């Protein structure tokens, strides 16, 4: 069921509780061990910014609205929300009978405290950008809370589901900020047991949960950076699920007994970014014809098949199919080196051209290999690519200081809406955008006012078509995440990200 319709003309719009997970009554049993390459920094959900934090948060904490294990937006600690006609006031009806992990009741006080904490600049919340439109939080009565926004936000609830974690006020005030980060407590399906930095986080089923008591009793998330060691752990049974395996290992994992592979769309799109914004005064890349030629010069399917071992799906434009409603009529630029050469000649480069490309090593899956293939395929049509491969923190650190005419990059998903990609990856004002097109900028600005989902979808499709026609980037693919899992485990990752939810996972004895 689709959510998130806010009609600005209606006086009050009420959204009811949808698709609640079914209650499970059997007691949790067994232990699930998951091995991932990295880990959260701090465990405080309001101070944490990396993807492994999101995974921890989603199992430990809840917001008024959350993404469930099918990536659907559903009410959690709220039962429903009413949005005022001006779109500036969100009135949440709180769910009754919700308890924190220590058994204390979750109240309107906790909600007010949590949101105020999350938007307080002193908290240094890295996710503040998502919810900084919140002006203030008012307690209307014991089970009603209103949030006033400074300005309208068409996808406020989607963002709140990503950054609006509810934490226990009394507990934090009793144990202090550091105490809370050391021993966090929330209302989520799993409760915290222990953590050793760089080693593991142990969690336990929260049997007091208001709807979803996990099927497994113990959840251990281990940090194992070496891919070969995660594979070995899967073989020996030390791990039940190993996440983020490199694509070249897919055949080896499939060949193992008692183990299978899962692969799901990551919500992350890959592209070659042209810098036609800063310092691009005389760049040949300013010419759309050249950019189109470069799109035709890359054999994307060959890279997907041979380098990525099919752990990616080709895309025509900038939208990821798992995050946005993509226009199926938009066909990817076909691989056609002859056409590419002709277009380059037509654009005034019959003898080819020279361009610098900067790629990271280790930031993205197989980034070095893929950049090399791309550079070679471009060479084949006469584009002499001078490829600079840099260690990833250097590459990112210099992103704002140095002019990269071309670079291999990705843009991920957080709130299941193209808005992030548009504002932060394509709008000429954005840090991560190297593209400049006034018409696209205006369309992006317009999108901010559209809250109706269907209308949003068509609007973003229009933008996507504009990007495609302008060949703003070399559009490549949406990646997939490869997971190895033991046969005795029943579990499905949700499409669109790697914020894995384990409450419905079960382990056979």
């Amino acid at each position, binding site marked *: 069921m689709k959510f998130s319709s806010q009609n600005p003309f209606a006086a009050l719009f009420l959204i009811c509780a949808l698709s609640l997970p079914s209650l499970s009554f059997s007691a949790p049993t067994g232990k699930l061990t998951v091995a991932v390459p990295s880990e959260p920094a701090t465990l405080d959900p309001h101070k944490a910014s990396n993807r492994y934090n999101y995974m921890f948060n989603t199992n430990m904490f809840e917001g008024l609205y959350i993404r469930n294990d099918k990536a659907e937006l559903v009410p959690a600690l709220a039962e429903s929300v009413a949005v005022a006609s001006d779109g500036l006031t969100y009135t949440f009806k709180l769910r009754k009978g919700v308890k924190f992990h220590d058994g204390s009741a979750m109240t309107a006080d906790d909600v007010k405290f949590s949101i105020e904490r999350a938007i307080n600049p002193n908290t240094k919340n890295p996710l503040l950008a998502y919810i900084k439109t919140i002006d203030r939080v008012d307690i209307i009565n014991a089970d009603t809370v209103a949030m006033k926004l400074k300005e309208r936000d068409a996808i406020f609830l989607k963002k709140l589901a990503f950054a609006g974690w509810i934490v226990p006020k009394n507990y934090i005030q009793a144990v202090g900020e550091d105490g809370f980060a050391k021993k966090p407590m929330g209302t989520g399906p799993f409760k915290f047991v222990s953590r050793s930095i760089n080693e593991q986080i142990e969690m336990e089923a929260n049997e007091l949960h208001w709807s979803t008591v996990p099927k497994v009793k113990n959840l251990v998330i281990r940090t194992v950076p070496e891919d070969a060691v995660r594979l070995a*752990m899967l073989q020996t049974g*030390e791990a039940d699920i190993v996440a983020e395996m490199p694509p070249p290992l897919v055949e080896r994992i499939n060949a193992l007994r008692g183990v299978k592979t899962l692969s799901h769309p990551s919500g992350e799109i890959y592209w070659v970014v042209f810098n036609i914004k800063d310092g691009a005064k005389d760049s040949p890349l300013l010419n759309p014809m050249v950019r189109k030629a470069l799109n035709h010069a890359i054999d994307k399917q060959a890279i997907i098949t041979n380098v990525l071992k099919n752990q990616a799906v080709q895309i025509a434009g900038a939208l990821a199919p798992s995050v946005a409603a993509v226009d199926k009529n938009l066909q990817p630029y076909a691989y056609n080196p002859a056409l590419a050469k002709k277009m380059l000649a037509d654009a005034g480069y019959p003898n080819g051209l020279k361009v610098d490309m900067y790629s990271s090593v280790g930031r993205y899956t197989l980034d070095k290999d893929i950049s090399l293939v791309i550079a070679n395929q471009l060479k084949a049509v006469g584009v002499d690519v001078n490829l600079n491969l840099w260690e990833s923190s250097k590459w990112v650190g210099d992103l704002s200081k140095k002019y990269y005419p071309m670079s291999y990059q990705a843009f991920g998903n957080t709130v299941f809406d193209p808005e*992030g990609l548009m504002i932060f990856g394509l709008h000429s004002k954005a840090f991560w955008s190297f593209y400049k097109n006034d018409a696209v900028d205006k369309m992006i600005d317009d999108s901010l006012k559209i809250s109706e989902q269907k209308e949003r979808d068509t609007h973003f499709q229009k933008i996507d078509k504009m990007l495609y026609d302008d060949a703003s980037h070399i559009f490549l693919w949406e990646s997939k995440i490869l997971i190895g899992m033991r046969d005795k485990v029943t579990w499905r990752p949700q499409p669109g990200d790697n914020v894995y939810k384990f409450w419905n996972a079960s382990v056979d004895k």
Partner: protein
Amino acid sequence: MNDRWRYLLERLIQAAVCVWGVSVIIFCITHFIGDPVQLLMPAEASQADRLAYQQALGLDKSAFERYIIFFANVLQGDLGQSYRFNTPVLALIWDKFPATFELAVAAIVFAIIVGVGSGILCAIRPNTWWDHCFEWLSLSGMAAPTFWVGIMLIMFFSVELRWLPTSGRSGLASLVLPAITLGWYSTAVISRMTRSTLLETLETDFIKTSVLKGAPSHIIIFKHCLKFMLPTLLTIISLQFVTLLAGAVITETIFSWPGIGRLLIQSAYGGDYPVVQGITVVCSIIFVLIQLAVDVVQFFLDPRIGHRQ
């Protein structure tokens, strides 16, 4: 003050200068790597958010100013605050150091037992098949990269034989493979050095005399020779111990061993420069202290040290 004590004092001053030099170098390296804010902030952060965050971390100040603050804090025993973990760097190091120390000690014990043992065996039977076998093993030990040795050991002992856990830190069993991996190179070095030193020692006049006097060979090897070799072995082993702490970066990453080596590499990748600086400074202090301790021990073992010619 005589020459010998002046020598010790000089070593102390050198040690302090060395630690200070390391602090400058590591500060410059982290400064030149680039701006950590881009690594720490999500893509969704606006330019204003980035600037605010930069200010909050004190990164808007000049490099010189930041170094002075950093160094003044170090002198007071404050290594700063981790950007990523939001905790004091010293507390993080304190938390992770025991794991690294445990691993390094286990590795050096392994290296001493196997290295000195095999070195002695080779020296008393030089140029036999036994000696050649160990020579070959030591050479391969020195040549094999740590990450390869580690993965091979996991493949064999964990995946094939299922004797030992692949990774993690859970009891003595999990210590075995990382300790061997880490100690591998040092074992080879110690074995070779023991062999050659012992062969040399066996050629000295005082050993020849005791052989002629008819002393039993085990007394000659273990009492006379080893005692004579001790200063040399001590220097080699202490140098190896220092290499072990450095090698821990790779070994800990392979075996998911939660020590400061992992913390260091993770912090370097994540732009958490206070942690990188803190670990480097702490490690350099440890290195220097070990060297100093060896010098002091040598100083008392060998009365010739420190006397000017």
